[in-house]
């Protein structure tokens, strides 16, 4: 394989992945901007009824479609190591949430901690998946 050939193929691989990640980032950016633009400025960060219903529905649809399609597309353009890392990462995040909620629930039943909060559990899942990704990818 000539010097230019394999370099072009490697660049093409990187470009394919960057295109998908970039598109997802752009969708997230636009969605975040719209929510911020229409959000009730007097409402709290996680308050209910703080954005118009139409925006809530559109945002939910855009999120589900873009994340579902984007994840599928990303799996298509990634190599098998990346797919394995993503799978392991998802398992770690899922386990954190699946184990985290019942543990928190039992401690709450005992009156030791506040009631389980979905947002914190979701944040723990995201944080653990980021840690797991870094571990499996760069260890």
């Amino acid at each position: 394989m000539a010097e230019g050939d394999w370099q072009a193929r490697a660049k093409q691989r990187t470009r394919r992945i960057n295109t998908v990640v970039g598109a997802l980032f752009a969708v997230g950016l636009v969605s975040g901007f719209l929510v911020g633009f229409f959000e009730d400025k007097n409402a709290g960060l996680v308050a209910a009824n703080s954005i118009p219903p139409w925006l809530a529905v559109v945002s939910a649809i855009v999120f589900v479609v873009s994340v579902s399609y984007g994840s599928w597309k990303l799996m298509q353009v990634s190599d098998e190591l990346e797919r394995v890392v993503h799978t392991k990462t998802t398992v770690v995040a899922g386990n954190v949430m699946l184990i985290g909620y019942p543990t928190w629930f039992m401690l709450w039943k005992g009156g030791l901690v506040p009631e389980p909060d979905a947002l914190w559990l979701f944040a723990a899942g995201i944080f653990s998946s980021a840690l797991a990704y870094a571990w499996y990818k760069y260890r």
Partner: protein
Amino acid sequence: MEEMKNRLKVLRAERDWSQAELGARLDVSRQAVNAIETGKYDPSLPLAFRIARLFDMHIEEIFDDEFTGGSHG
């Protein structure tokens, strides 16, 4: 967990290929080649076959599972 050893780094060096070049020839990332060479990742069977075909060798000439825990039958 069983550890798979391989001769990928030696075979690559014999051809004076970089990890990125070998990755491009196998249609995987440079990181994947590095992970296989360092034993952190065992390739799938299809990728192992692609590697074997690229070097014109049999899979078992490149990969060695060093399995000593029981009978192979």
